Every structure is written in structure tokens, then in C-alpha cells.
């Protein structure tokens, strides 16, 4: 019973928090001086009012975090992610609203902040540990663990200025997690470490999570975030755009980035596009297995206008037999010239688990440049080795432009698929197991 009561406990509550910043240094100097002068006479500065040259870096942001939760925050540069972390770390105060935090906060807003380049790693552990609020006794006790986790070998007794950036991060992360905070804030710092170390960090994060520690991660690495968080806040310009399940966050964030529209306005966005008649060629909606609740985004320069699922007799089906070879065919219409199109698809379970995904890019297929009003049919032929159950199919068309993938039309979970199986096997994949039994005769 105790476990359930602790998991629902709110540990952080952000209530209508706003924070303003200034663009000019001279103005900043003046305003801070004015505010401090007021404070000397016991008068609180009127922080809730914007003075000339100020803007809201965070505007009325509210959210709560439960104990033991791992929360991700994504958003474009300047959206206010680091400001949230700084507020949580009590480095700065809000200008409006209030923040309540229960427990000790450990911040990794900049890794190795406070490292002195001239001192050795070991010496820096003492200094940094003290900054994180550890006593010498505590540091001595954890010294071995810190050094072991950082895993930088003999360098521990060399001046930190001779460290590679990776070693810096290793040591910094190690000290921070060993200071045993109740809440750990991590800002885009793990990107520097190599893959084995990143893995180690995320394993450590899982360990902390199992010990009911709360973790807040800010990162641009969406895939890392998807795998390691339970909830993701998408930040717009100083406001929370939406709060998503990790599996949905990537697409919704890409929608936001490509349209600059709030995810909440997605339906209106689609309607508007339809009224502009560019979506009117779409006949997907008439299909029996079309999912009304699809999440659709992209710039619309090319669109998926039709799809079909065919069985091996070439007949259109809505229900697939487990292990049947099927063809998923989609028709894409180009409304503008696209130099390098890419087609892709993915299958997910109804609760958002990615089972399989592929694309023309992964298969090394170069697609010819397409002109306005060109129509392309793409067929994905596959052995549908899934167990019986309900699945979603997600398909998309994108453009490669200057090494960037630009979504043209992505239709998340737009097809609903039912798989039936003749056997009673469990799980999601059908490995088509044959069971053979040999009775060895005893002589």
C-alpha cells in the first residue's frame, strides 16, 4: 500500500510561474540596481510588471511532477527550458507565481560547473561535492563510488584542464548523482559523453528512479527522451504547448516545429488546410479502417491521398491473418516540386509501442525528383508476423533538404489494423514456431 501512496505524491508544483528577461545589458544593470535599492528599504520590486526592454521568457507556466517520475522537457531554443531548471534549482526567483519543491535538488545545468582547471579530478570532487552540499565525511565515504562510476582511470589525479570534454562530463555527472538528490535536473549534458557512458547514465537514472528519485531531463535528443522519460512537456515560446506521452511527443514536437502552430490547434490546422482544398484529394477518410483520431502534420507540399492493404491474392482487406504476406500501398500526390522525397511507415501497438518501422531511405532507395501534380504509389510488401490484436499503421512522406528531414505529410496512426491468428500464442510477434517432439526410446 505504501508504494502506491508514494507514487502519487506531488513533489514539485509550478503554479502560474512567469519570469522576465532583458535583451540589453545596460538596461539590466540599471533595473537590477533599482530593484536592489528598493529592497534595501524593504520595498519589494514590482516584478510582475514589464519595464521597457523586458520580455517574458516564461509566461504563466504551471505543471506538477510526482515523486519518482521522470519528466522530459523539449522545445526550440529560447523556449524557456533552462529557465525552468534554474527556477527549480532555486538559482533564480520567479517574477510571478510560486514554486513548491519538496526535497533536495541536484542540478546538472552545466556539467563541471565549479571545476577548477588547475586542480586534479580528486581535488575537484571535494570542491564540487561541497557545492552540492556534501560534507567531507560523506564525500570520503562515496569517493570510491564516484571515481569508479566516472571511470576515467589515472586521470583522476591529473589537473582537470587536461581532461577531454567526455571525461569532464563523466566526472561531473558522477559527482552529481552521488550527492543523492531527491530531484535531479539534467540539462542537455549527456550528449557529450560517448555511447557506453550515455548508457551507463541512463541505467543510473533508472536506478535512481527505482529508488523513487524524481528526474527532469532537458534535451534535444528526442529518441533518448522517448526511451527514458514517462511524460514530456513540449515548450513553445515561454509557454507549455502540450504535455504528451513520450511516444507521441516526437511527432507532436515535429508538428510544432514545422507549423509553428500549437499542438492543441492541430484539428483547426487541418481544417484550414482542407478549406484551402489541398487536402480535398484525400480519400483515406472513406476507408473502413481509417482512424479518425489520427495525428497529422507536415507542410503539405506532398500528401498521402489514398492507401490500401492487399493480401497475397491482391484483395483489399482490413483484417490480416497472422504471418500473412501483405502489401501496404499508399498514393502520394505532390503539390510542389520536391527534389528528394522519402517514404516511410511504422507499426505500433494500440498503447503506443513501436513495433517496426522502415523507409525508402533506410533501404537505400533514391527517389526521383517529383514535379507538381505528380502522383507516386509506394508499396511496402511485408510478412505480417504479428500476433492477434489491434495495431496502428503510421505512414509519412518527407523531404531531404540540406541534410535535414522536413515532414511533408505525416499521418500518425491513421490506419487501424486487426490481426487474427489461428493459434493461441501470446505476445505481439508471431515467430511462427514449430514444435517438434522426439520421444527418445530407452533401451
Amino acid at each position, binding site marked *: 500500500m505504501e508504494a502506491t501512496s508514494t507514487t502519487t505524491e506531488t513533489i514539485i508544483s509550478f503554479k502560474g510561474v512567469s519570469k522576465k528577461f532583458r535583451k540589453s*545589458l545596460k538596461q*539590466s*544593470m540599471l533595473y*537590477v*540596481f533599482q*530593484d*536592489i535599492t528598493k*529592497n*534595501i528599504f*524593504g*520595498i*519589494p*520590486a514590482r*516584478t*510582475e510588471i514589464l519595464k521597457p526592454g523586458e520580455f517574458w521568457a516564461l509566461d504563466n507556466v504551471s505543471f506538477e511532477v510526482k515523486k519518482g517520475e521522470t519528466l522530459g522537457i523539449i522545445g526550440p531554443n529560447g523556449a524557456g527550458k533552462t529557465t525552468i531548471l*534554474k*527556477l527549480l*534549482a*532555486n*538559482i*533564480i*526567483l*520567479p*517574477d*510571478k*507565481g*510560486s*514554486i*513548491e*519543491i*519538496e*526535497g533536495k*535538488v541536484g*542540478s546538472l*545545468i*552545466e556539467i563541471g*560547473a*565549479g571545476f*577548477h582547471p*588547475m*586542480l586534479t579530478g580528486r*581535488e575537484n570532487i*571535494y*570542491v564540487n561535492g*561541497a*557545492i*552540492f*552540499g556534501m*560534507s*567531507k565525511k560523506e564525500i570520503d565515504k562515496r569517493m570510491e563510488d564516484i571515481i569508479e562510476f566516472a571511470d576515467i582511470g589515472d586521470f583522476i589525479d591529473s*589537473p582537470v584542464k587536461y581532461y577531454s570534454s567526455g571525461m569532464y562530463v563523466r566526472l561531473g555527472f558522477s559527482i552529481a548523482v552521488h550527492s543523492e538528490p531527491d530531484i535531479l535536473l539534467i540539462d542537455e549534458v549527456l550528449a557529450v559523453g560517448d555511447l557506453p557512458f550515455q548508457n551507463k547514465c541512463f541505467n543510473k537514472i533508472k536506478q535512481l528512479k527505482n529508488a523513487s528519485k524524481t528526474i527532469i531531463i532537458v534535451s534535444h535528443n528526442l529518441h533518448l527522451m522517448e526511451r527514458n522519460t514517462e511524460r514530456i512537456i513540449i515548450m513553445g515560446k515561454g509557454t507549455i504547448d502540450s504535455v504528451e506521452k513520450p511516444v507521441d511527443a516526437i511527432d507532436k514536437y515535429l508538428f510544432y516545429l514545422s507549423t509553428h502552430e500549437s499542438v492543441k490547434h492541430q484539428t483547426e490546422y487541418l481544417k484550414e488546410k482542407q478549406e484551402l482544398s489541398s487536402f480535398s484529394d484525400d480519400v483515406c477518410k472513406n476507408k473502413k479502417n481509417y482512424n479518425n483520431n489520427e495525428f497529422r502534420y507536415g507542410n503539405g507540399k506532398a500528401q498521402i491521398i489514398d492507401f490500401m492493404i492487399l493480401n497475397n491474392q491482391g484483395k483489399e482487406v482490413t483484417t490480416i491473418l497472422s504471418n500473412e504476406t501483405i502489401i501496404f500501398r499508399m498514393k502520394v500526390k505532390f503539390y510542389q516540386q520536391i527534389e528528394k522525397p522519402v517514404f516511410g511507415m511504422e507499426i505500433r501497438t494500440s498503447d503506443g509501442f513501436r513495433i517496426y518501422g522502415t523507409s525508402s531511405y533506410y533501404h537505400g532507395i533514391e527517389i526521383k525528383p517529383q514535379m507538381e501534380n505528380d502522383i507516386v504509389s509506394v508499396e511496402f510488401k511485408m510478412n505480417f508476423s504479428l500476433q492477434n490484436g489491434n495495431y496502428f499503421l503510421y505512414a509519412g512522406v518527407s523531404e531531404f533538404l540540406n541534410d535535414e528531414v522536413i515532414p511533408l505529410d505525416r499521418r500518425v496512426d491513421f490506419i487501424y489494423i486487426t490481426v487474427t491468428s489461428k493459434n493461441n500464442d501470446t505476445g505481439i510477434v508471431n515467430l511462427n514456431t514449430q514444435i517438434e517432439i522426439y520421444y527418445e526410446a530407452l533401451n
Partner: protein
Amino acid sequence: MEDNIKISIPEFPVKQGFFKLFREMFSELKKSRELIFRFFIRDFRARYKQSLLGIAWIIIMPVSFIGVFILMNKSGIINIGEIDVPYPVFALTGLTIWQLFATGLIGTTNSIISAGSIVIKINFPKETLVFSSLAQAFFDFLIRMFLVALVFIFYKVSPSWQALFFPIFFIPLIILTLGIGLLLSLLNCISRDITNVVGLVTTFLLFLTPILYQKPAVKLFENISRYNILVPLVTGPRDLILYGRITNPAAYIGATVISLLVFLFSWRIFHLAEYKMTEVI
């Protein structure tokens, strides 16, 4: 668990009661003794790591300074005046005490801005940086006191027995330095001009304070030194060592009271402005 909950609201420090803020300041200082010590050790080690002469630099400075002064006196450029003890004993004792103020002030003024990104990236009591940089100046002072002792032995001068009380009478100067340092370190975050101003003013003050000479020869200097609270705070402890008395007790007591007030006032402002500091640094 209740006291484990931290609430942050706009202008939090100001909205606390007058005395509650003082109580918080003292309890925070008590809790951060360890951190002050760590910063002190860190800066101390880092300072001499890539230096061949190392700790010797602490005494090279005052010795060469006094050397120049003796030369200038001998060649008649300046007039030191009549002194009861050998000049190097007189000057070095005063200068050593003075330098706690001078190096302490320069160190504390720069302590926040030279701490780099930790100030804006990690939450910890920023006072610790100021206190630890004063500890640095105090350590230098102790080393220089060895030099003073050597000079006493060399000139066969014995300090008065009252010199035993020196540590007590030295405290007001430390408190004054901390007080001014706290305020200047804060102002330095807002405007970097402070660093240069402090360097300039301490040099001026050295000549306005009767440390390298006995008595101001010019009327203007004499008037200034009457209102200069550094005069009793520096010459008081010095005279205690050399002559076994505080020359002007009333001025000394007055200066002590002022120092304490300056310290409490500055510390409070520093604490009030701690959050704002991170926004301009």
C-alpha cells in the same frame, strides 16, 4: 518533512521579516563553513600550482615595496619623519596589517565574478565565495607575520607584551574588509568598473593612511585621516605591537562600531540581492 518544502515566490528575501532574514543569514553561514573551507583550499592550491616561486610571492611584494620607500627616503624624495623604532620594523608591521585590508578588498570584490559559471548554474550561498577569498587574504597575512617576526629579530626589537592581545584588536579591520567586500562584490556584478575603482582607491588610501610615515605632513592629509576609519583600525593594532598601547582609543572604538554596522548592513544587502546577482552577472 514539513521544513523540507521549499517555496519560491517573487522577491522572497524582502518579504521575509527583518529579523528572520538575519537569522537565516547566520544559519546559512553556519551550514556553509565546509564550503568556505573548500573554496579556500581550492583557490590556495590553484594559485601556486603553476608557479615556481609559489608562496614566496606573498612576501616579495611588501619587502620590495618597503625597499623602494627606504631608497626614496634616503635620497630625500620623501620624508618619513621621526620614528622611535627602526623604520623597516615600523613600516612592515603597519604594511602587513594594511595589506589584509588591501588584498582582502581586491579579492572579495572580484570573488563573485571570477567564480565563473557556478554562480549562474548551481545554487549555493554566494557569501561563501566572499568569505573564502577573505580567508585567502588572512592566510597571506599570517605568512607575512612570519616576515615581520624575522625583521623584529633582525633589528633586535622586542614587541610589547600587550601584543598578545593583537588578535582581538585586529578583528574590527577584518570585519570592515568583509563588510565593504560584500557590498563591492555585489556592485561588481552589476558594473565591472568597481574592480578598477577598488585598485585605484586602495593605492590612494595607502598614502592617506599613516603606515609608511609617522604623521601627515600636509594639513589636508591630516584632516582626511581624522575621518578615515582605517587609520585607527590599522594603526591601533600596529601601535599595540610596537608601543603596547592604542594611540587613540576613542577613535578606535568608534571605528569598530562603524565597521560592525557596515558589515551587517552590507551582508544584508548582499543576501537580499543574491538572486538578482545571478541575472546580471
